[in-house]
């Protein structure tokens, strides 16, 4: 668009934070990245020879991908959520100081022979018949692996999020402590951590200020396009990509039972889904676990726990690979459980 010679253009140019010169030539580091990108289809985060650099905190801080609303007050805490889930935490040649504590994977009890598509379609039909409206709140419990090589977490501290849309269109987002656990899910004591339910942060957003990735689900007829668009997926995403898009949608939007059923119906058409079996999720509820490793074959699995009455009630990201010395596969890297 024409920016012309307006004064805004001049001022914007004067506060441009970009550090790399625009005419910067690609050096060995960038060419090495190109080579690695072209030689692998999996995430090359950190595998491209990008050594962690010292940040202002004196240690390379890798902000790991997480899908929770986070607020200015806890920015420093969130900054501790480091290391990309799909990257090596430690560089080749380094000796791990310790392994990260992670939640015990959900235990699935196999169910009878059924095709994943049929199962999800059946779930969709049951859910759609319930005719429940979308709630005004999105509530979920989240945990994500936070790891720094010299200070690996020794307990599991999930948090609960409550995002409420008020009648005036404003949004209130709250984050609360949800306890301190060992891998088996037993509450721990003796740690200096807020008791469960303690409000850690609250933020209020004026109408239109909350940065939704997904537009309103009202009126959606093409759930594939809706998930691809909001999820920032390419033209041909994997089923695992769709699983993560569903997760990213549900942490910010509430769906009616009809909408949720339509979304499940779309998922039922996707390939590469495995029925793991019946599981009890982190909040003690029974559901069917379905999963896929299509997003990161041989390295991670994306898991959805679904029920015929509520649809997707949980998401888990599980490391299944062999290239990380800080994790023992299978290891849960992050999870969300909606309630």
């Amino acid at each position, binding site marked *: 668009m024409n920016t012309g010679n307006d004064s805004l253009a*001049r001022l*914007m140019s004067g506060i441009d934070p970009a550090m790399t010169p625009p005419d910067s030539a690609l050096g060995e580091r960038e060419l090495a990245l190109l080579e690695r990108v072209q030689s692998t289809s999996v995430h090359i985060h950190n595998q491209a020879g990008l050594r962690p650099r010292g940040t202002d905190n004196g240690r390379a*801080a890798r902000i790991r991908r997480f899908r929770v609303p986070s607020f*200015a007050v806890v920015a420093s805490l969130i900054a501790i959520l480091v290391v990309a889930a799909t990257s090596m935490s430690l560089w080749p040649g380094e000796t791990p100081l310790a392994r990260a504590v992670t939640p015990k994977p959900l235990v699935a009890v196999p169910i009878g022979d059924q095709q994943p598509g049929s199962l999800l379609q059946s779930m969709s039909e049951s859910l759609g018949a319930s005719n429940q409206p979308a709630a005004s709140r999105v509530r979920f419990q989240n945990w994500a692996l936070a790891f720094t090589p010299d200070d690996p977490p020794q307990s599991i501290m999930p948090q609960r999020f409550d995002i409420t849309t008020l009648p005036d269109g404003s949004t209130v987002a709250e984050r609360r402590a949800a306890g301190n656990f060992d891998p088996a899910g037993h509450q721990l004591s003796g740690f200096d951590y807020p008791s469960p339910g303690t409000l850690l942060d609250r933020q209020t957003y004026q109408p239109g200020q909350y940065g939704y990735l997904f537009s309103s689900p009202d009126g959606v007829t093409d759930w594939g396009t809706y998930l691809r668009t909001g999820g920032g997926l390419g033209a041909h995403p994997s089923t695992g990509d769709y699983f993560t898009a569903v997760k990213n949608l549900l942490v910010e939007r509430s769906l009616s039972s009809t909408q949720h059923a339509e979304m499940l119906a779309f998922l039922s058409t996707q390939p590469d889904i495995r029925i793991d079996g019946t599981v009890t999720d982190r909040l003690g509820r029974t559901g069917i676990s379905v999963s896929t490793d299509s997003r990161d074959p041989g390295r991670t699995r994306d898991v959805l726990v679904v029920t015929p009455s509520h649809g997707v009630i949980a998401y888990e990201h599980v490391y299944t690979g062999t290239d990380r010395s800080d994790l023992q596969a299978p290891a849960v890297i992050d999870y969300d459980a909606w309630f």
Partner: protein
Amino acid sequence: MFEHVFHANYVLVRRYAERRVPSAALAEDIAAETFTAAWVRYQQGDSIELPWLYRVASNKINDHFRSAERKRAVEETLERVLSEQEEGADTLEKIALGRSLLKLTDREREAILLTYWEGLGAAEVAVALSCSVASAWAILSRARKKLRALLGEPFVAGLTDGGRK
């Protein structure tokens, strides 16, 4: 060839990330993740255009930061560049602009940044924001109007073509 795409766009994407996240290391990671996604797309036979790369980078940044944190990330990058400013006639204006940018919505601010820092045209901004060209114009128009009000002065809109830096 993909190499051409990489050579032509890596620095641009890297600069895009540097403008939106406070850490140079994170910006580098964002660029790396973006081109990984681009390689997958390329292998599927789809074209790779710069606005698409910006959209992917934006999503990667979104993966790292949620809502208020995105604003905080931009705030930190602006604080850094403003703290490095030499005292000049327009220092106060720049500081005011930096603060005013943070008062825009995420999409308005992104439209402004894509237009003035990335130098994108209307159609390209639309792709990057995943909206129609008309919407992109409307978002930018609204953003400029807000900035005018916050800064208390009109912008003189010239007619020369905008373009990539």
